[in-house]
C-alpha cells in the first residue's frame, strides 16, 4: 500500500481546533447508568486515547460529544460538553456533527458508489458545485491514501472495497466535511494489522489539525499515538474516569493502582 501524503489543502482549516470540556457528564440508558460524573478537558489539536476494559462507557462517552446518543431513545444525559466555550446543547445538531466528525469500529460506508459516499454528505451540507465536489473528493481521498487505489473505479460500490479501504473511505467521508474534532471508536479493531498500521499513520498525520479522541483497546497503539490518556474503569456497575493525564505519565508513573494494574499488561 502506498504511504499517504497529506496535500496542503486539507492542512489549512478555517479555525484552530477547539478544546473540549466535559463537566459532570453522566449518561443513563433507562435505569442502567453507563458512566457518571466525568470531568475532563481535552487539549486542542492533541490526540487523547480513551482506554479501559469493555463496558466501562468509553464508547457511550464518545457518542455524547457529538450527541449521537440521542439516536437511542432511552438515553438520558446530564452535565455539559463545551467546544471551546460553547455548550454543545446550544449548537444545532447538523452544524455540531459537521464540526465533530466520527469514525466507527466497523467500517460503515453507505451502500452507494465510492463517489456518492463522499458526494452525498457534501450535497446535503449545501455544497452543490460539481467541480468543487470533485475537487474535495480527490483531495480527501488523496489524504487518506485511497485516491491511487480507487481513482479508476469511483462508480464501483463502496462495499466492494476491502475492510481497510472501507475504513479509510469513512475517514475521507468525515474529513470532507472539514470537521475540527474527530471521534474514533476503535477504528482499527476490525482491521488486519497492515491496514491498521495505515490508519494509525493517518491519525498521527492529523495531529495538530484536529482535536482527536480515540477509543482503543490496544495499549501499544495508545502509547504510540496519544498525547493524553484517559483511563476508564467500572466501579459499582458505573463507568468512571479514574485517571487522566499526559500519556507518558499514565504509562510510566500511574497514580491510581487500577491504572497501574491495567497498563502493566501493555507489554504482555
Amino acid at each position, binding site marked *: 500500500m502506498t504511504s499517504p501524503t497529506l496535500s496542503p489543502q486539507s492542512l489549512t482549516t478555517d479555525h484552530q481546533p477547539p478544546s473540549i470540556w466535559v463537566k459532570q457528564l453522566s449518561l443513563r440508558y433507562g435505569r442502567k447508568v453507563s458512566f457518571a460524573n466525568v470531568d475532563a478537558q481535552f487539549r486542542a489539536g492533541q490526540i487523547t486515547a480513551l482506554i479501559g476494559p469493555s463496558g466501562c462507557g468509553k464508547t457511550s462517552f464518545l457518542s455524547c460529544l457529538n450527541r449521537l446518543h440521542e439516536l437511542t431513545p432511552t438515553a438520558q444525559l446530564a452535565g455539559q460538553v463545551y467546544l471551546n466555550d460553547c455548550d454543545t446543547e446550544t449548537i444545532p445538531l447538523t452544524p455540531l456533527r459537521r464540526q465533530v*466528525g466520527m469514525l466507527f469500529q466497523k467500517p460503515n460506508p453507505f451502500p452507494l458508489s465510492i463517489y456518492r459516499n463522499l458526494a452525498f*454528505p457534501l450535497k*446535503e451540507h449545501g455544497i452543490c458545485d460539481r467541480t468543487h465536489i470533485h475537487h474535495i473528493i480527490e483531495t480527501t481521498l488523496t489524504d487518506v491514501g485511497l485516491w491511487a487505489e480507487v481513482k479508476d473505479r469511483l462508480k464501483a460500490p463502496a462495499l466492494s472495497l476491502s475492510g481497510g479501504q472501507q475504513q479509510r473511505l469513512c475517514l475521507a467521508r468525515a474529513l470532507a466535511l472539514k470537521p475540527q474534532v474527530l471521534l474514533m471508536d476503535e477504528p482499527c479493531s476490525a482491521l488486519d494489522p497492515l491496514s491498521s498500521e495505515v490508519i494509525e499513520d493517518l491519525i498521527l498525520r492529523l495531529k495538530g489539525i484536529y482535536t482527536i479522541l480515540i477509543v482503543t483497546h490496544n495499549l501499544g497503539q495508545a502509547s504510540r499515538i496519544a498525547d493524553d490518556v484517559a483511563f476508564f474503569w467500572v466501579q459499582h456497575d458505573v463507568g468512571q474516569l479514574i485517571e487522566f493525564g499526559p500519556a507518558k505519565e499514565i504509562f510510566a508513573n500511574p497514580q491510581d493502582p487500577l491504572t497501574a494494574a491495567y497498563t502493566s499488561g501493555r507489554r504482555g
Partner: protein
Amino acid sequence: MVRRHPAGKEQGATLMVWLVALGITAVFLWLLSDVIWQGGQAVNGAFLTQAPAKAGLEGGIAPILVSTGLVLGVCIGVSLPLGLGTAVFLTEFSPQRSHRVIRLSLDILAGVPSIVFGLFGNAFFSRVLGLGFSILSGGLTLACMVLPILIRSIQVGLVNVPREYRQAAAALGLSRLGTLKTLILPAALPGIAVGILLGIGRAIAETAALIFTSGYVDRMPTSLLDSGRVLSIHIFDLAMNIPGGEQNAYGTALVLVILLIVINTLVSWFAERFRQSKLQIL
C-alpha cells in the same frame, strides 16, 4: 390405537398425520384442478379480448379486466402515498410510543370484515361524497382495506435497514430527510414492492367490499365515475344469478387465480432478494 402399546400408538399417529395431510392435499388439488380444467375450456384469446354477451353467458371478459385494472389502479394510487407516508412517519419520525394509537387503529383495521368496508364505502364514498356506484368509490374503499397490509410491509422494510446507515448518516450531520431519500428508501425498496404486491393480491381477491361500491355494470368503463364490474364480482354473478353461467365463471376464476399466483411468485422473489441484499451488507 391401543393405549398400552406405545409403539402402536406412534404408528397410529403417524398414519393419522399422513392421512390428514394427504386428505387436505387431495381436496385442494381437486379444487385447483377443477378450476384449471373447467376454466381451461372457457379461456382462450377471444375470452380475454371480447366483451361479455347475454349477461356473460357468451363472449369474454375484456371490460371486466379493464375495470379490475382501474379499480386496482385507484386503490394503489391512493393507498401507496398514504401508506408510504404513514410507514415513514411511524418508523423514522416517531419511534416513541406516542403514536401507538395509530398502530393500534391500523391493526384493528386489518381485521375488519370486508363486508363492513363495503358498508362504509357505500355510505361514505358512494353517498356522502356523491361518487355513486363507480370505479372510483370501489378503488377508494379497497384503498382503506389494503392500507394496513401496505403500511406493515413497508415498516418491516424500513426497520430492517441496517442501523449502521442511520448512525453513520447522523454522525455526518445529515438531515433525516436526505438520509431517508438517498439511503433508507432505496434500501427498503424490495420491502415496499412486497407491500404493494400483497396489497394488490388482497384487493384483486376482494368481492364483498365491491358489490355495493363499484357495482355490477359489465360495460367497458369510459371514466372512473362509471360503474365497473371486477373479476371476482363477475364470478359471483355468473355462478349465482345466471343459470348455466358456471363455465364462464370458472374461466374468470382461472384468470383470477393465475394473476394471484403471478403476484405470489413476485412476492417471494422480492422477499428473497431483500433477504440476500441484507446478507450481502452484513
